[in-house]
């Protein structure tokens, strides 16, 4: 749902311009230093980019899903690392409080996420628990008016810079599955939190992940999100929305890659003409364009359906599965069209090729999306 087309056009236009004028020129520096420069982060805060999905009454923009995916596609035109910095505040780092937080929690956390004063992160994955998240082992033991957290969370995006940790932990050790899990919002500075070394990743330099370790960490009981035992449901709601966002980013990145590949193909000459004139190159360009368009349509349609209140669990997973695999193929073709130049880091496609690999892994691997889609199909048929 687009509440006001004119406002959305302006929002998207300003994001596109910021991407073009400020972010794209900084891509190489971010890749080399593994840091997004402070002044760019400050500008992103001033622009209001940290609060896109936070409700308006808490200082955010309260974008609908359809509006959000339009902005996410625009952000996709540059290194995913930039989006990642603000991605947790707009998504997995804040959504649990937005969906299921108490009024007091919303008052305390949401305005700070919206302004970017605080960075939130989402702690579900553990060393022994990835796709099978319901089997998580981190424990939260009630003691008086606190819960005592123990456990290790792995690959936590923005963990190294986080001010709050949305932690899923087992409050009931008797129940092994999802029903024993609760969600907490833990503030930096709580005793017993430590961070592991920053992970060395294949791509997305500038977006930092690390282990977050809880050792007898006392979390005030008021920081429980929702009810005990409902944390896994909250986490799945968070990931459900995130799937469409990642799908939209994948579409944006695909557009960027297609643009880069096309301009290279128009300029590079071989056999006496621009390689864009060779039909085998044209086939790659056309396939990429077509697939990106298909993904765009899927994302927009699903976002609209979600805004209408439809259950889009199957469709969101279908979007994530198709869009993230699509951008992998588009990146691969973009490298191919660049020839040897696509393999050296003077051209952005080399970096994007590595960056987009992540989209098929986190917030549910492609296999997990397939499982969700098929399980929903089977459930609906019986």
């Amino acid at each position, binding site marked *: 749902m687009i509440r*006001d087309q004119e406002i959305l056009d302006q929002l998207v236009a300003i994001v596109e311009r910021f991407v073009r004028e400020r972010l794209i020129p900084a891509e190489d520096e971010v890749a080399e230093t593994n840091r997004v420069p402070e002044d760019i982060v400050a500008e992103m805060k001033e622009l209001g980019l940290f*609060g896109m999905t936070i409700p308006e009454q808490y200082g955010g923009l309260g974008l609908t899903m359809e509006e959000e995916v339009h902005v996410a596609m625009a952000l996709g035109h540059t290194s995913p690392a930039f989006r990642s910095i603000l991605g947790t505040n707009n998504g997995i780092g804040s959504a649990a409080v937005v969906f299921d937080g108490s009024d007091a929690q919303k008052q305390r956390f949401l305005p700070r996420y919206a302004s970017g004063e605080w960075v939130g992160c989402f702690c579900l994955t553990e060393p022994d628990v990835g796709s099978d998240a319901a089997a998580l082992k981190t424990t939260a033991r009630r003691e008086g008016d606190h819960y005592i957290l123990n456990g290790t969370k792995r690959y936590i995006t923005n963990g190294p810079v986080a001010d709050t940790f949305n932690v899923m932990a087992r409050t009931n050790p008797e129940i092994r599955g999802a029903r024993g899990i609760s969600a907490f919002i833990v503030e930096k500075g709580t005793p017993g939190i430590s961070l592991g070394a920053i992970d060395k990743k294949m791509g997305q330099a500038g977006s930092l992940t690390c282990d977050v370790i809880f050792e007898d960490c006392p979390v005030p009981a008021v920081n429980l999100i929702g009810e005990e035992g409902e944390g896994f449901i909250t986490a799945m709601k968070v990931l459900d929305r995130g799937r469409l966002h990642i799908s939209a980013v994948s579409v944006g990145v695909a557009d960027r890659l297609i643009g880069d590949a096309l301009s290279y193909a128009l300029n590079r000459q071989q056999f006496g003409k621009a390689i864009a004139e060779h039909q085998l190159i044209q086939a790659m360009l056309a396939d990429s364009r077509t697939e990106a368009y298909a993904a765009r349509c899927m994302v927009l349609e699903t976002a609209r359906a979600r805004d209408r209140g439809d259950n889009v669990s199957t469709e969101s997973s279908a979007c994530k599965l198709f869009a993230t695999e699509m951008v992998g193929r588009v990146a691969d073709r973009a490298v191919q069209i660049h020839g040897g130049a696509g393999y050296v880091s003077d051209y952005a496609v080399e970096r994007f090729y590595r960056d987009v690999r992540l989209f098929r892994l986190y917030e549910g691997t492609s296999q997990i999306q397939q499982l969700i889609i098929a399980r929903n199909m089977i459930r609906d048929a019986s």
Partner: protein
Amino acid sequence: MKVLVAVKRVVDAYVKVRVKSDHSGVELANAKMAINPFCEIAVEEAIRLKEQGKAEEVIAVSIGTSASQEQIRTALALGADRGILVETDQEAQPLSVARILKAIVEKEGIDLVILGKQSIDTDNNQVGQMLGALTNMPQGTFACKAEPGDGTITVTREIDGGEQTVALKLPAIVTTDLRLNEPRYASLPNIMKAKKKPIDTVTPDALGVSMESRIRTLSVEPPPQRSAGIKVGSVDELIDKLKNEAKVI
């Protein structure tokens, strides 16, 4: 101090335009449109004056079709207080624009008019000067610095070979050059809030201005394509070509 800024809707500077097949103009259908960059500098300057407490109100005016509201909204998102759309389907040529601005200056009791030195579509560079002639207001064109004083404004102008500083008595006109300031980005929350700021719509007729055109475009041609260069084998060949083909020495 009451400040008027004019904002023009032009094709986005990043769009590659093509000449229409009938040579009547450039193809703008579906082209991305934006606020003229020089106008944006004018808006930024006005807002800075407001932030420094030197201006009480900033009014943004645009002349064009209803689509020009978008550019007024951009100015409002950047910090202008209210907008005026002078709605017309006809081409806004410099003299008509200057006359419309004159009518608004008089109606609103404007102390300072800040305009872009030119718009990037037709690059006329005329409206500010014409408005000066029509109103007898002093003008500081091509400004790279503007410092308001008590009932005055000191403007540093970019001129051939250097800078010139002039002191103008208010009410006055300033036209902006590129180095005057670096416009901010409208923040997303301010874009949303701008929707609530008022935009008045008037017609040129109501302001007593005729849009009758005095200039007729006969034909629009793309710039000539640069032909490929050649490599010369020796200095002698180079001299020969410069002398006999290029005829520059």
